[in-house]
């Protein structure tokens, strides 16, 4: 098999904040580094992150990394690894300063220091007064960071493979991962990229659900490649949903709308939140509101032709209030729901937003797996960072402002670790032809013609099934039925076909390849959720409503082979400070 081959010291797959920050470390150290991105790098999903980056700079209010650590451990519902969390909160400070020096235009105070805004879940003095910890570049923080990192990478001469799709990891004859087979989207031709170290930084997987705030590119590609390489995914049952996204589309409708007086009604016009949360009503916690909406739909009180959403009403606020305080929401609703909230309710449904789990790593971004002897071991030369990775800093739920922080800290530290790795591992490893053929088979299967299920139909069916059976409403009955259906859809995938076998910019073929990734990662979420018999953080089960620290304070590990589940302990011992023991979370 003759496939063009390129060699680099380091290969990074994904060009969001994690990938670009790692690449910058490497290129600045004169490491020969390549970045593969399926879209132009500045179109990565990091661009959509508006909120900001947490770091205890204490520019606005008193703060220190230890308080940040406490908030993050508590926010994780005590499932986060406390050594990794301590590390992240300490490293947040130099990471933000490094970005500042690289040119990120952070908003400023009058005294010239970086402005910091308060966010939910932040406290001073271990649960005391509100803290102000989030550094932002106006309302375009992700954009500013992504562009700065991209420009700095161009300056440092990072090699970019723009609009190349990663098909699979490949191994040498000893079984060590030594590169990736990628596809040039323009020509449809494969290229083999061999490297001493490979970093997966492919972002989240929100597209496994029908309704998601994630862009179409977020298809869990790195997670799926890892699964196919025999590495488990960790804590995949923990997926953060926002209760109100535009129905069928997923764009977030901020909680501020209900804060301004908006309320939810079912198809009969009933304010149903009064039944589920008599005191807090529409301002109940996210998971309660999300589950209440889904319950209304499941019990036949959903609105619309298919009865699959409910309404968010704002008309009573009046045009002036809506235009003045919620202009973005009005525009969003008009464009994507065809409803002007001044005179019509907005159709909404819970929207999948953020993946807490992912590829298990240590705090240096090294992918780790259970060892034959001892706790765990690193997979030689394989790294992961960003939303696709799980260094276990979010545990069962993520705090606002910690997602950009995660990708930047662990992207940076993975880059630094790879520098050392490639300097001590010089020998070039050659790809085993058998491994290359297996990776190529992912591509060539779509050349088959004849009878079969259209890939795009299967994609829609799978995402709907994930939403119905592995979304916010998670009982044993619902999830067990879902697992059966998802398994059937996985079987159908073997007969999936494309109508177009051409090569040049065949986006249908790329979407079919993404579908395989969605199925692999979706099953990881569904199976992990089915097995965890407790409610913790974002994983909420009406049939097991309590957190169970005796039996379930442990991480899930999902293996693709046989849909197997294993577990590993939570690392409760921080690096230098005392542990924060589990407590009931109250805010």
């Amino acid at each position: 098999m003759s496939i063009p081959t390129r060699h680099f010291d380091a290969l990074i797959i994904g060009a969001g904040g994690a990938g670009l920050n790692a690449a910058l470390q490497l290129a600045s150290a004169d490491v020969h580094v390549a970045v593969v991105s399926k879209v132009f790098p500045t179109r990565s999903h990091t661009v959509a992150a508006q909120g900001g980056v947490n770091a205890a700079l204490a520019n606005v209010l008193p703060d220190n990394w230890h308080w940040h650590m406490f908030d993050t451990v508590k926010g994780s519902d005590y499932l986060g690894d406390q050594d990794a969390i301590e590390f992240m909160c300490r490293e947040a400070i130099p990471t933000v300063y490094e970005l500042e020096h690289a040119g990120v235009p952070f908003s400023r105070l009058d005294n010239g220091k970086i402005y910091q805004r308060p966010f939910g879940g932040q406290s001073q003095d271990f649960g005391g007064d509100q803290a102000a910890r989030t550094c932002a570049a106006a309302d375009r923080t992700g954009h500013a960071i992504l562009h700065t990192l991209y420009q700095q990478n161009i300056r440092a001469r990072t090699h970019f493979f723009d609009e190349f799709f990663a098909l699979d990891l490949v191994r040498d004859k000893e079984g060590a991962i030594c590169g990736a087979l990628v596809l040039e989207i323009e020509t449809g031709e494969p290229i083999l990229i061999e490297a001493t170290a490979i970093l997966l930084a492919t972002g989240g997987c929100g597209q496994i659900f029908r309704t998601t705030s994630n862009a179409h590119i977020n298809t869990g590609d790195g997670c799926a490649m890892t699964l196919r390489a025999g590495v488990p995914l960790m804590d995949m049952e923990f997926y953060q949903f926002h209760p109100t996204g535009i129905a069928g589309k997923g764009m977030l409708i901020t909680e501020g709308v209900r804060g301004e007086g908006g309320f939810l009604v079912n198809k009969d016009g009933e304010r149903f939140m009064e039944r589920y949360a008599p005191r807090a009503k529409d301002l109940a916690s996210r998971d309660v509101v999300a589950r209440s909406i889904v319950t209304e739909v499941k019990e036949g009180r959903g609105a619309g032709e298919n009865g699959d959403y409910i309404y968010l009403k704002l008309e009573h606020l009046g045009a002036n209030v809506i235009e003045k305080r919620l202009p973005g929401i009005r525009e969003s609703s008009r464009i994507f729901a065809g409803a002007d909230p001044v005179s019509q309710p907005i159709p909404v449904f819970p929207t999948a937003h953020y993946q807490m789990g992912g590829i298990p790593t240590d705090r240096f971004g090294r992918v780790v797996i259970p060892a034959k002897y001892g706790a765990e071991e690193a997979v030689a030369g394989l790294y992961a960072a960003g939303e696709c990775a799980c260094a276990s800093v979010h545990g069962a739920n993520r705090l606002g402002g910690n997602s950009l922080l995660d990708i930047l800290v662990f992207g940076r530290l993975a880059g630094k670790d790879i520098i050392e790795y490639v300097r001590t591992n010089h020998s070039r490893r050659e790809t085993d032809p058998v491994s290359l053929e297996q990776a190529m088979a992912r591509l060539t299967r779509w050349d088959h013609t004849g009878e079969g299920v259209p890939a795009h139909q299967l994609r829609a069916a799978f995402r709907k099934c994930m939403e119905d059976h592995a979304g916010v409403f998670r009982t044993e009955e619902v999830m067990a039925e879902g697992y059966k259906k998802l398994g059937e859809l996985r079987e159908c995938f073997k007969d999936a076909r494309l109508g177009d076998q051409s090569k040049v910019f065949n986006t249908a073929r790329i979407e079919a390849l993404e579908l395989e990734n969605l199925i692999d990662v979706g099953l990881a979420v569904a199976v992990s959720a089915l097995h965890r018999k407790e409610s913790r953080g974002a994983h909420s089960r009406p049939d097991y409503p309590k957190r169970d620290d005796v039996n379930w304070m442990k991480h899930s590990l999902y293996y693709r082979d046989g849909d197997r589940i294993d577990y590993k302990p939570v690392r409760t011992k921080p690096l230098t400070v005392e542990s924060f023991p589990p407590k009931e979370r109250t805010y």
Partner: protein
Amino acid sequence: MVDPNQNGTTDAEIRRLRWQCRRGMLELDHLLMPFLDQGYRHLDPRRRAEFVTLLAQQDQDLSDWFMSRCVHEDPRLHDLIRHIVAVVAAQQS
């Protein structure tokens, strides 16, 4: 789907543009791809060129223009932006 032979639009052109419509923000995905399918073929050559120009802009800027947070300084591109919004919004109604 777009009829590739309608109004001189080539299949290769549509294929190339379709991948350019994949963006980092969901809102842009839901504006640009549906417009490529429903509205692009009705544009004259000058406006098609403007659409290509628009696709080369940054996601955050596109988002600001589409969501009316600010106005594009080029009146022709501003018109095209409002046209894209109108075409996509009409599909929802």
